């Protein structure tokens, strides 16, 4: 009870302070969410974190605030995610429960997801992602848009100016009452990205500027929320997004002019009905993505388009002290591209049933099973067992879970011309995980200490890999099996004393992601770390808020990453230190204005996240925000 009291106290205080710094959304209670989330092994990042101008996009945020490793090709460039040592297609990105992963390549480009469109981001690690669907062998990133009921009209706008021609304009208009809410968001983001780097590939190692790296992003999101009688809620969202980006070449290339344009329409309708002891939710989405690629040097102009209809139904109820979650999903994907001779269609159905109950006091078990069926032809059954133990006297929560997951090949893997491989097998994983969470509140010091430690093991069979051949084309094959294992540590201290709020947060992850198959006697990849997966990753951040002043500092460490499968070649480790300050003022009546400024890569580290792709050196930004409420 003392802990709960502390949590509530901190939550309310943090909420008040958030209002001072005019975050665009202030209703979320971050400390409460975080406290709850640890028991289900997910990290929840609320709007106060999302609105920090230090974070450029979803990939940038997750690289600092979670155990995820983001493989970024540069600011605004392709950013794919690796969770628990798995590949880019092994992490699901869900929007209000609907998968946004491309049916063509199976993965998501996090650089195309503006944080301003999100009210909450959570990361579910490993098997915990199975509650939302298959495919998340590494885990899942869940993006949510949330209602903000209240009789209020508000307007929020901000303008950010940064180094290398970065400009970001955000606008949010919210209106409605206790039953109806309309939230409109508009973004415009651009950068030249012409930062300086030392060219180690040219004689004399001259300093040069990155060329062909400019990007422009434009987007609109409209959310409508309507409360209906008898505890019913209807939500509708429309997300329009356009990105044009030049793809900077490797510094080993003399000239390369590549351009990529992405056009996305995401629309979603969700109906929720809250009964006395049960909940029914139905979500349907239509997703349309178009990608236009131009390579001037190669004379390539290609277009690919996907249209997806995805729907899910969730029913949660309690039956004789058993919490039951039943779910049904149906996805229809259609893809057409220059690389496909004809349009390709794929239908998937999934059924999920989960039952949880306390078998004895403080020990809770949950058993679930999910089925996946592809085109009424191939099917998979994925069981999962979880046990939770609550040791209240020591403020400890211990859990263990084990189960299976599957990632079905993407449409490119199967049908891409000339080398798609219809004989590919699905990647199947067997996973186990144990974890412990310690949480302690000290009421007098108004302090909440939270820590967690997790050990995980994952065996992925039939790893799909694209390989060149001696005959001039690339072909996907089920090449190897891989084992990933590791640990994740999390520590957070929150304190709210008077008008001072402090938060210290540290994460560390160790990931051993290895291949245990040997192709022949000269294959030296056996037992070696998979390429571009750092064994060590750590992050330390400090937030301070004193009345209407704030200070934020973040330190990130990425360990060495091997870039050859025999681990003979590697990229050195690097660490980045970022800091920012902000000051908010009440302006006229219900208007607030805030100024913030920050420095990224303060130590001016020269580093490459991908070999021969330089990353930005020290850079700066300033931001001004205005909020009006009526």
């Amino acid at each position: 009870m003392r802990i709960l009291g502390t949590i509530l106290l901190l939550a309310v205080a943090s909420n008040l302070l958030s209002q001072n710094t005019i975050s665009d959304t202030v209703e979320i209670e971050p400390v409460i969410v975080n406290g709850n989330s640890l028991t289900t092994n997910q990290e929840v990042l609320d709007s106060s974190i999302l609105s920090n101008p230090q974070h450029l996009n979803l990939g940038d945020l997750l690289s600092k605030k979670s155990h995820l490793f983001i493989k970024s090709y540069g600011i605004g460039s392709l950013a794919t995610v690796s969770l628990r040592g798995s590949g880019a297609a092994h992490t699901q990105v869900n929007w209000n429960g609907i998968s946004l992963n491309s049916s063509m390549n199976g993965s998501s480009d996090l650089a195309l997801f503006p944080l301003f469109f999100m009210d909450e981001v959570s990361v579910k690690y490993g098997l915990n992602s199975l509650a939302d669907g298959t495919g998340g062998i590494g885990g899942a990133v869940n993006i949510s848009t949330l209602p903000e009921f209240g009789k209020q009209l508000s307007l929020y706008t901000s303008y950010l100016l940064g180094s290398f021609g970065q400009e970001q304009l955000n606008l949010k208009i919210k209106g409605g009452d206790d039953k109806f809410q309309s939230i409109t968001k508009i973004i415009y983001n651009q950068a030249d990205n012409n930062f300086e780097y030392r060219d180690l590939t040219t004689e004399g190692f001259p300093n040069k500027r990155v060329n062909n790296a400019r990007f422009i992003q434009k987007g609109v999101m409209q959310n409508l929320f309507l409360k209906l009688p008898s505890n019913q809620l209807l939500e509708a969202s429309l997300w329009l997004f356009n990105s044009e980006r030049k793809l900077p070449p490797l510094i080993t290339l003399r000239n390369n002019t590549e351009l990529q344009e992405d056009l996305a329409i995401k629309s979603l309708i969700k109906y929720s009905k809250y009964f006395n002891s049960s909940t029914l939710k139905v979500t349907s989405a239509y997703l349309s993505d178009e990608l236009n690629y131009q390579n001037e040097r190669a004379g390539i102009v290609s277009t690919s388009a996907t249209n997806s209809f995805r729907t899910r139904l969730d029913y949660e109820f309690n039956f004789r002290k058993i919490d039951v979650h039943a779910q049904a999903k149906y996805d229809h994907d259609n893809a057409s591209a220059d690389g496909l001779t004809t349009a390709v269609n794929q239908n998937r159905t999934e059924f999920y049933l989960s039952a949880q109950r306390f078998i004895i006091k403080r020990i809770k078990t949950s058993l679930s099973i999910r089925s996946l069926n592809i085109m009424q032809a191939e099917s998979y059954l994925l069981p999962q067992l979880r046990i939770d133990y609550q040791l209240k006297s020591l403020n400890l929560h211990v859990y263990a879970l084990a189960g299976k997951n599957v990632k079905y090949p993407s449409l490119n893997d199967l049908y891409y011309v000339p080398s798609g491989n219809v004989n590919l097998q699905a990647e199947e994983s067997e996973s186990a995980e144990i974890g412990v969470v310690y949480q302690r509140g000290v009421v007098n010091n108004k302090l909440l200490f939270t820590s967690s430690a997790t050990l995980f093991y994952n065996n992925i069979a039939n790893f799909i890999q694209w390989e060149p051949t001696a005959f001039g084309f690339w072909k996907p094959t089920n090449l190897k099996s891989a084992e990933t294992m590791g640990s994740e540590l999390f520590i957070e201290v929150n304190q709210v004393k008077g008008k001072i709020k402090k938060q210290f947060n540290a994460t560390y992850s160790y990931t051993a992601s290895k291949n245990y198959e040997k192709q022949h006697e000269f294959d030296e990849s056996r037992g070696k770390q998979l390429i571009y997966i750092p064994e060590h990753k750590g992050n330390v951040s400090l937030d301070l808020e004193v009345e209407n002043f704030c200070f934020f500092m973040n330190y990130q460490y990425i360990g060495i990453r091997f870039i050859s499968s025999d681990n003979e070649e590697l990229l050195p480790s690097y660490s980045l230190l970022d800091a920012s300050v902000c000051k908010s003022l009440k302006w006229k009546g219900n208007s607030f204005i805030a100024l913030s400024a920050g420095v990224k890569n303060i130590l001016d580290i020269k580093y490459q996240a991908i070999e021969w792709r330089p990353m930005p050196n020290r850079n700066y930004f300033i931001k001004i925000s205005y909020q009006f409420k009526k």
Partner: protein
Amino acid sequence: MKQFISVLLILFVFSCKSDDEQQEPVPLNQSMVLLLNEGNYNFGNASLSLYNEKDKTVNHKIFQSNNQGRPIGDVVQSALQIGNKLFVVVNNSSKIEVLDVSDLTSIAAIQQLNSPRYIAVANPNKAYVSDLYEDKLYVINPTSHVVLKTIETKGWVEEMAIASGKLYMTHVDSNQVWILDIVTDSILQKISTHKQPQYIEIDKNKTAWVSCSGGLNGSKSALYQIETLTDSVLSIFEGVTSDFKIGELELNSTRDELHFLGKDGLYSMNVSAGILADIPKIGQGNRLFYGFSIHPITNEIYISDAIDYQQRGVVYRFDYSGNQLDAFKVGIIPGDIVFLN
């Protein structure tokens, strides 16, 4: 706060590394074999390895070692020795590095190229460079290292060979062999082939052998035998099944036995055999044969194996009968092999 700053400092100290590390230049001796490691496309990890036939040692990243730590670039496709210079075609870096054969230091780089693939030399002052994207053939001067002119090809040209005063080029996009007069640089004739002609060799009888991969949609591979005096097709040897792919071609030192990479390994056939070899001389087994060359003096066969395309590959050395003599590790995706003289 002090502890926090301490943590930052410790992490910072441990994470700083110099990016100026350089290796000592490696001197060259006689009997050297240069292994061209293509590297992964768009990874910039191509390299050159040097194998010493006498003491059986290998020097890795020899270009980097002998050129102030500078990497060679992205996708080393082929190389040709012209006199005392080695012309290394770095495909995706759009250049040809011209190296001094005595120490493999860079003399010049020919940069005015798009996506160069192979070189064929007509005389000390004239060579042809094929290109993947440019729809042109470059004519370069190997002495002055300049591009003299370009010749319209309207498509991708791959390997080339010169015989009887003519340049024979595999024109992949049109499924033809184009024949060019190397004096006037005019197209003399176009010979239609099976899909995707890519490799070409000239045997002791001045007969051109052209391998066609057959493309990727189930078409059969084929081997064309073209008489270069009359430019008539003497024979067409078609793969028995569509998965019997015919890849890279090489001839032995007396140029009377043709070798090719195929479905199950390395095949060889006498140029007068009149029938396509269908039993490998050197079986591939679970290895991944990616490229090969035959020593012009000893007839030893060097075959490169890319293993998983993500680690340092291996080169096997066989005697001419196909008995393995040794094997040694090289760089990532070893392809072409050049015997320096």
